[in-house]
């Protein structure tokens, strides 16, 4: 179980995250929602320790994650896999090597540095790629893949870490609607199939409602909602998203209306 207590991060005077507290049960699929700049990314990055907290504690199965350093920290990162908005693959390396990166904390350093990956690990990597139907691309350079394919490679890399929790930071923000489905379905499958906890930052409330068991709403660095998706009423969502809410509570009925002054319309018509 992941337990976060009073987690805070300051960048100068800016409180990116202040006093975040929550617990996530093993096997849950939790969505973290909120507008840009609400502190969602910082929260996830603190759990992987890419960003160090200014105050507060993170515990996982009783172990104090905030206190880890050196090889203990690397072992923790292996258990808490990250998935990024921009995929963060090494574009010049082939897909298989990118996925094998997920073994980097476990394989002896001389082997990984020399590129002599054990066959067993290659099999695991290929098996992960097959899970997401991209095994035929294993020998291709990652930079030559489409966005959706790259994100699936990144998910395979995370899966190959054999993690206990996956932290997905806006995994679909750079993807088109079709790939959004493919990637979210992949995360859901990992969650249901392999029993791995997923903590996923999402922009879109519709997607969050469709996939998550539970939602955590953030605004201005604070947690302002924590509960089942059905409990998140439109009024509460408006509180979380502020002025952005109309764009987030999507659906055809609420399509954004052009906001042009009459005079400008007149000029455009004349021209």
């Amino acid at each position, binding site marked *: 179980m992941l337990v976060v207590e009073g987690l805070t991060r300051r960048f100068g005077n800016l409180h990116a995250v202040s006093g975040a507290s929550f617990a996530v049960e093993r096997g849950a699929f939790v969505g973290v929602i909120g507008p840009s700049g609400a502190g969602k990314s910082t929260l996830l990055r603190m759990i992987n320790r890419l960003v160090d907290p200014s105050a507060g504690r993170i515990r996982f199965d009783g172990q104090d994650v905030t206190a880890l350093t050196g090889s203990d920290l690397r072992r923790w990162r292996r258990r808490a896999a990250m998935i990024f908005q921009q995929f963060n693959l090494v574009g010049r390396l082939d897909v*298989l090597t990118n996925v094998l990166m997920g073994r980097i904390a476990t394989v002896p350093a001389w082997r990984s540095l020399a590129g002599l990956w054990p*066959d*067993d690990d*290659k*099999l*695991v990597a*290929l*098996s*992960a790629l*097959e*899970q997401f139907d991209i*095994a035929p691309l*294993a*020998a291709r350079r990652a930079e030559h893949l489409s966005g959706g394919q790259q994100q699936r490679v990144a998910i395979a890399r995370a*899966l*190959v870490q*054999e993690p206990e929790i996956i932290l997905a930071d806006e995994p679909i923000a750079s993807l088109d609607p079709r790939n959004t489905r493919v990637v979210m379905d992949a995360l859901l499958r990992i969650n249901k*199939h*392999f*029993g791995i906890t997923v903590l996923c930052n999402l922009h879109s409330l519709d997607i969050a409602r469709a996939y998550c068991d539970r939602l955590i709403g953030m605004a201005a660095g604070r947690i302002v909602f924590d509960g089942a998706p059905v409990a998140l009423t439109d009024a509460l969502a408006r509180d979380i998203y502020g002025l952005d809410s109309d764009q987030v509570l999507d659906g055809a009925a609420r399509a954004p209306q052009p906001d042009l002054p009459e005079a400008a319309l007149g000029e455009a018509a004349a021209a």
Partner: protein
Amino acid sequence: MSPLRRIAVANADALRARHSDLFDGVLARRLTAIAVVVVLAALAALAVWRLDVSLARFGSGLVQIANIVGAMFPPTPGTHLVVFLHALAETLAIAFLGTLIAAAIAFPLGLLAAKNVIPNVFAHFAVRRLLDTVRGVDVLIWALIFINVVGLGPFAGILAIAASDTGSFGKLFSEAIENADRKPVEGVVAAGGSALHAVRYGLVPQVVPVIASQVLYYFESNTRSATIIGIVGAGGIGLHLAEQIRVLEWGQVAFLVLLILVTVAVIDWVSGRLRFAIIGRSTVGAG
């Protein structure tokens, strides 16, 4: 064992069969890598043998080095402090003017040599070969040439550095321009910009930080080069350095070397600050 690993183990043979290309070629690739290393080592050994590299001779020479280092203490300017400082200023001026002239000439040449600016193969091929030729002649040779053209002194040094670095800058600038992102250029062209606009607003803002840091590095490097070309008579502190070595005044040699060292360190520090000011800290930090 994680579920994923269980699946991998259960299907190991099938996986291996389906992706045999990823497993079979490994030995051949490894042997190729080993062969490359062996060939390189053999070449190095051949070079050592043919060039008469002798550790024994180096060992006996070490005693001589110890004597020289001993004679260098304490470093002293002797009675030439003002002369030395004047020569140092001259060296700095040579490096500054030489680098500036080289950058000014190389910038348009770099644009002409970049494939994404001049699509015409013949045009950029011609400019590139010209730059290669200029670069192929070392700064020391340029110095000897220009001493014969304009006579002994700093002017020859400035011309030597300007000539040799025009070649280097031209190549570096054109590569920086070719590595620039195409998307901003597309944005400018799509808005109705001319080819010149595309260069001015699409490419130049991208390459300015790279070019600035290269120019600043070359200024520092040229301060050291200016010392060397001083030895052949193209002005600056190198002349004094060569002279003090000839008359075995090791204390003064040490002083001159320290003077150059401090100057280069100061330039390095200043250019580091300048570079940050030009690039902007945001791109260097976490962003």
